């Protein structure tokens, strides 16, 4: 079956430093990949999604590149902000929305 792996459970870094959160996946088909962000006491919200190999979506300074050859969809940002502190979930789906398979999540804490 499908699976998503996020190797870091916790990431702490200083404001202004680059962010990279890892996501790899296993699927028997060519899935759609997503990043969701959940701030404290808020609902998970879609951050960005990718449908095409090597296409790089961007949102709020975050970007991710889908590499089918390595089954990866790592989330990156050049300079972390305090407001980026949140829980980040990588997910995949067989189509653009329904039945998401989530990774375990990475809690990002950005310190001054």
């Amino acid at each position: 079956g499908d699976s998503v792996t996020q190797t870091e459970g916790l990431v702490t870094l200083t404001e202004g430093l680059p962010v990279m959160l890892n996501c790899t996946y296993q699927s028997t088909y060519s899935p759609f990949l997503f990043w969701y962000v959940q701030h404290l006491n808020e609902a998970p919200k879609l951050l960005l999604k990718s449908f095409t190999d090597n296409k790089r979506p961007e949102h709020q300074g975050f970007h991710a590149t889908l590499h089918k050859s390595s089954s990866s969809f790592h989330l990156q940002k050049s300079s972390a902000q305090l407001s980026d502190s949140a829980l980040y979930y990588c997910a995949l789906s067989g189509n653009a929305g329904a039945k998401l398979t989530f990774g375990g999540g990475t809690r990002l804490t950005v310190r001054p």
Partner: protein
Amino acid sequence: GPKVLQIPSHQIIDMGQMVTLNCDPVSNHLYFYWYKQILGQQMEFLVNFYNGKVMEKSKLFKDQFSVERPDGSYFTLKIQPTALEDSAVYFCASSLGSETEVFFGKGTRLTVV
């Protein structure tokens, strides 16, 4: 932006009792979902629902679980009877189509004692 509301945010229930989790999806959405997240684990798909019917369910969706959305009101998840292992955060979600963005609620934390 569009919001999915879940009521209540926390619920404590005695094992063996019935519980109904309520979800108010985005008003024009047609597809509805429940996900379950046990503490410290990942969010897992339970069921999706469209046009009054369950479209797909996972192995986590036990016989004690049921979903409905009578007359376009709340989308509900009922557990009867509850078991200790049902303790988790349950997230409701909705989408306009089967291939459009899915919007999540904040979740209901269910504690079965």
